[in-house]
């Protein structure tokens, strides 16, 4: 009995091997057979190159690093005027206002966590350029899979301040029904998939959505944001390989901000950043200065065009710096110097470079800056106060959306909860909640 099992198994393997070999053989036979070249080309399935007789290993350390594409100098002038995307004044002002509004919102929500008003928060300091530069270059219908530090993308698409606040408070007006931790935003209307806490899970999912887009031929692409730390997850490999093999229209946008919580890039990878991996997967790639909003904009615009017209993935590695702590659960002074942070904050900051450009155009000045600071702070505080005084959701919403229709066991739990709360209502702070039905 055992022998027959083994024989079947071996026959199965053998048949399969033969089958595969014959496919490959048919493909290469004509070329090989008629070749007149002295140096035959290798016919191994799955490679394309030449034979050599010199014993030599390839050392990536000998190669020049992948260059960083930049358009603006620190004073806000175009290094090569041909790279100016010539955006109009209104667009430029919206870009600037979104970046700075994001900043102000971060400050208020970060402090509110420190005061114990919300449980958690993550700031976007230093990475505003990658958010707004990329978001502005996309079609608003393009589907976004964020990691968790892409609030600026959502802001660019028109997610209102009070919605950010409602989400962080998990109150009755949170469109996410208070289900998720702060900063795990999502909006179907704005084509922004709800953030998943588990690192890099969004990456293969983004490739899957891009496959659906490829089938629909809808002229849109998927954009998947991730950090250089997330790129170490197995999911990243799966996402790159599947997107390339299935020829999916997707932009993988890596925010290389120098740190994965406390882990610096030198402890994260040995090679030349994340961009160097693209060629291994057969992907197009570019590395950009993430603190140069126009460089990010141009690269994203071109990547979008390439990935849709050629139906293939494109990788953008935006080099930037995380000025804030990883999250409110982190104190980054334990692993990096104040001087280092201060350099990026003061000397190479995406917002200040962009402001120089605006001033050079005559679109911005000290007066406007002062006024906008006041106005934006007011807007944020108004939304903040609104969210804080808002009631919490209906208690029974706890049981909704586990399935599209509520099964009996969950209905029973809900009924038990309602009866219990009604019976002992004096022990529950029901005045803070929307009423039980």
């Amino acid at each position, binding site marked *: 009995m055992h022998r027959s099992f083994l024989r079947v198994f071996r026959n199965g393997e053998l048949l*399969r091997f033969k089958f595969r070999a014959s496919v490959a053989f048919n493909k290469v036979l004509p070329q090989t057979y008629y070749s007149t070249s002295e140096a035959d080309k290798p016919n191994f399935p799955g490679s394309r190159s030449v034979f050599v007789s010199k014993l030599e290993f390839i050392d990536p350390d000998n190669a020049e690093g992948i260059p960083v594409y930049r358009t603006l100098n620190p004073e806000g002038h175009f290094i090569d005027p041909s790279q100016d995307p010539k955006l109009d004044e209104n667009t430029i002002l919206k870009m600037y206002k979104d970046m700075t509004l994001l900043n102000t919102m971060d400050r208020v929500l970060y402090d509110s966590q420190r005061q114990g008003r919300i449980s958690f928060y993550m700031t976007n300091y230093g990475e505003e350029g990658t958010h707004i530069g990329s978001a502005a270059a996309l079609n608003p219908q393009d589907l976004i899979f964020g990691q968790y530090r892409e609030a600026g993308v959502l802001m660019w698409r028109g997610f209102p301040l009070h919605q950010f606040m409602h989400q962080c408070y998990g109150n009755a007006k949170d469109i996410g029904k208070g289900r998720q931790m702060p900063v795990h935003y999502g909006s179907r209307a704005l084509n922004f998939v709800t953030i998943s806490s588990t690192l890099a899970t969004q990456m293969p999912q983004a490739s899957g959505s891009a496959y659906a887009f490829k089938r629909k031929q809808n002229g849109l692409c998927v954009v998947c944001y991730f950090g250089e730390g997330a790129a170490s997850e197995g999911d990243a490999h799966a996402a790159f390989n*599947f997107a390339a093999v299935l020829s999916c229209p997707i932009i993988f946008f890596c925010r290389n901000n120098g740190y994965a919580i406390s882990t610096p890039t030198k402890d994260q990878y040995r090679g030349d950043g994340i961009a160097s991996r693209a060629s291994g997967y057969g992907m197009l790639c570019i590395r950009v200065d993430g603190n140069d909003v126009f460089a990010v904009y141009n690269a994203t615009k071109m990547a979008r065009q390439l990935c849709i017209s050629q139906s293939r993935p494109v990788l953008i590695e935006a080099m930037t710096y995380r000025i804030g702590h990883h999250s409110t659960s982190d104190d980054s002074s334990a692993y990096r110097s104040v001087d280092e942070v201060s350099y990026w904050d003061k000397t190479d900051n995406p917002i200040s470079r962009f402001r120089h450009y605006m001033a050079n155009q005559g679109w911005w000045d000290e007066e406007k800056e002062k006024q906008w600071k006041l106005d934006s702070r007011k807007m944020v505080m108004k939304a903040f106060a609104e969210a804080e005084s808002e009631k919490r959701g209906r208690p029974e919403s706890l049981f909704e959306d586990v399935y599209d229709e509520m099964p009996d066991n969950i209905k029973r739990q809900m009924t038990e909860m309602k009866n219990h709360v009604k019976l002992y209502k004096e022990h529950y702070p029901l005045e803070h909640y929307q009423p039980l039905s």
Partner: protein
Amino acid sequence: MKMATFCCRISTVARHAKALGNTTRLLTTSSHRCAQQLTVRDALNAALDEELTRDETVLLMGEEVAQYDGAYKVSKGLLAKHGEKRIIDTPITEMGFAGIAVGAAMAGLRPICEFMTFNFSMQAIDQVINSAAKTFYMSAGRVPVPIVFRGPNGAAAGVGAQHSQCFGSWYSQVPGLKVISPYSAEDCKGLLKSAIRDPNPVVFLENELMYGISMDMSDEAMSKDFLLPIGKAKIERQGKHITLVAHSKSVGTCLEAANELAGKGIECEVINLRTLRPLDEETIIKSVIKTNHLVTVEGGWPQCGIGSEIVARVMESAAFNYLDAPVLRVTGADVPMPYAKSLEDLALPQVKNILTAVRKSLNIK
């Protein structure tokens, strides 16, 4: 992860088919109307084919599902009929194609994600649980993930510890998932079709040893509109002395045991769970109130198993007061599966184990 394609031992299957043939003929109430027989494999294949034909958004992806017709030939002929856009061979990364399937579902497709066996789904469990099962809830009902994860589950034959285990209890613990563990060809067809049409993520646990077994199919079951409700158990055999509850292949073992006991005047009621989540406790409770005795049977391990859950539910229900004896569980042995056939047989529930449990429950020699 990939293992060598494994085949079940022909003689085991033949023996099993014979036993099943006997019991089904005796037990199926509608047997006189059954014009046809179908293997479990062909029933699954028909379900896939019909749903792929019915709905353009349905697609099948996994390792070897297209060119090779599936490691167990469940997807035979589907590539030729539905094309490579719908039947997709993927690179060998479970986490990858499970994630791709979740993303495709988020973007409006209805993927069927085949794990060559559920043992390999461990590589992808984060995508199944943290993403597929929870996204609808976490997005406040905005992002549905209609997806079917399917493939063979439970012990096969002679493939050792890493290829022989039941994941029924693992997945059935997770809110947001529906978990189906079919037994017969009819179950497979009707439930797989329902799973594909269901808007929620469904884990569909097949059994490799059942693939080659031919079973009766009623005329309704042969129809392309045949659906079975998810969450409803089936009473495979009526009885009044004791209730046997099982899922998947163990239902067949229970039917064999019931057949043997019937000759001794003991009438077992055999419940085929069909769905593990949501669990049809009503059918079990009603039956126990009638028979006053309960034995659960499963191929999986005892701790936190499906049997444990059933015992707990019965304790908490009205049926508790009707029990005349403690509930007993017949399960796989609490060890990783050994390879040697002699040991493997001992590690899985056999008819004799069920007979012993029934005698113990009824307090007869």
